[in-house]
């Protein structure tokens, strides 16, 4: 049955009950009525009008000036009714935007998807979690015909949709790099030219590019202003900064990037991250890089994927489950 048809007798009953004994029970029934009437989109002015007309029936001797007062109440409530309906419609719109964003995030996942390669001798773990829907961090693995494993980790300055759009371009730029083998430095030089030409001047990208050759266990790498990673020396049980000099992508067309090399021993780890990891903000400010090392060390006996997952969970908790920046952490561990 339509609520509008039963609304009047129902409200009449409520009024009569309450006028009789002013019980809490009758008031509670009133609350339930309001829930139903909101559900059926009854506007506040209709309730006022219903109230007035029922009062006139129930109390025919009511002074006129009391009845007139309801006209003012009705007029005032019209504004509230409109505001409420506007609120409903905005909420609906927000819902639409949210689902659109979710679709965009899925599309992004598909566009930027990369498979973590399975290689003998190397244990790889990676996690990338966006702060909002869309991720401005990006990582990419390539395994070439010589079994070399390349890893790129990048971060667009900024987050959200603009950063994500920019990242899609970087991915296609990387895919279209010539097949013949280039060192990390020349790959960054190529990407820099593309970014400089195609991306809004206010947007910059940091990137670390590493290439591991399982033949000689040599890691070559170059960085375009990216947050330095760590190198874990298993023999010394020591973490050092994996730093490399280089300007951000997109600043200057003719930037050169140097190649750095490191021999990777069994048990050693290469830890790459985005600034969302080190810029985890806790109640006491940003976490120190040393604290991050402690967290990694805590799980060092686990597989690379378990380490990154567990470190993320811990840091997420530390920030009360509110990520302020996109978070990406990659670990490459040479198997013992």
């Amino acid at each position, binding site marked *: 049955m339509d609520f509008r048809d039963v609304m009047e007798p129902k409200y009449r009953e409520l009024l009569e009950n309450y006028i009789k004994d002013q019980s809490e029970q009758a008031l509670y029934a009133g609350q339930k009525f309001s829930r139903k009437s909101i559900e059926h989109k009854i506007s506040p002015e209709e309730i006022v009008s219903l109230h007035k007309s029922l009062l006139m029936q129930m109390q025919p001797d009511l002074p006129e000036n009391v009845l007139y007062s309801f006209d003012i109440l*009705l007029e005032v409530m019209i504004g509230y009714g*409109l505001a409420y309906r*506007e609120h409903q419609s*905005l909420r609906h719109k927000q819902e639409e935007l949210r689902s659109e964003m979710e679709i965009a995030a899925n599309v992004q996942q598909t566009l930027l998807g990369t498979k973590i390669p399975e290689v003998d001798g190397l244990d790889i773990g990676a996690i990338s979690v966006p702060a909002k829907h869309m991720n401005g961090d990006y990582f990419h693995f390539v395994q070439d015909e010589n079994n070399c494993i390349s890893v790129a980790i990048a971060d667009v300055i900024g987050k959200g949709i603009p950063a994500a759009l920019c990242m899609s371009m970087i991915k296609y730029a990387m895919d279209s790099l010539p097949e013949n083998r280039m060192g990390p430095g020349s790959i960054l030089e190529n990407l820099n030219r593309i970014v400089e030409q195609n991306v809004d001047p206010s947007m910059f990208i940091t990137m670390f590019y590493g290439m591991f050759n399982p033949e000689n266990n040599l890691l070559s790498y170059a960085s375009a202003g990216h947050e330095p990673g760590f190198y874990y020396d298993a023999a010394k049980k020591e973490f050092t900064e994996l730093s490399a000099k280089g300007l951000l992508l997109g600043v200057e067309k003719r930037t050169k990037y140097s190649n750095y090399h490191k021999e990777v021993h069994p048990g050693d780890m290469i830890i790459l991250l985005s600034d969302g990891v080190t810029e985890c903000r806790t109640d006491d400010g940003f976490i120190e890089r040393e604290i991050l090392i402690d967290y990694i060390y805590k799980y060092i006996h686990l597989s690379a994927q378990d380490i990154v997952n567990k470190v993320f969970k811990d840091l997420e908790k530390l920030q009360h489950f509110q990520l302020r920046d996109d978070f990406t952490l990659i670990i490459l561990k040479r198997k013992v």
Partner: protein
Amino acid sequence: MSIQSCVTIINEWDIVAARQLGRNVAKELGFGTVDQARITTAISELARNIYLYAGKGQICIDKLFDGGKPGVKISAIDSGPGISDIRQVMEDGYSTSGGLGAGLPGVKRLMDQFEIESIPGDGTKIKATKWLR
């Protein structure tokens, strides 16, 4: 068939006159108190827009009889600056967030039919109709 009467809007008192005219017509046609209040609120909003943004204009009230079904039509006509982005002013939250009242989306909600035409530099014509149920 249509019977029209108009109020010129120049100052805030004219808004009251337009409301009064609208209420009288709505009452005459048999609209209930809630719909009377809705129609007058819509008139108020349109008249206030004229007063605030165009400076001068007219609110006209028509009695309509469409196949015996009575209705009231509000026309708001001004030769003010016009609206360059109608989509924006018809968007929820645009006028209310600035505390400007229910705005045009509010008028559209209060009435059954709503039409707007505006030429920047030339003026705005808004027609809103409500039918007796």
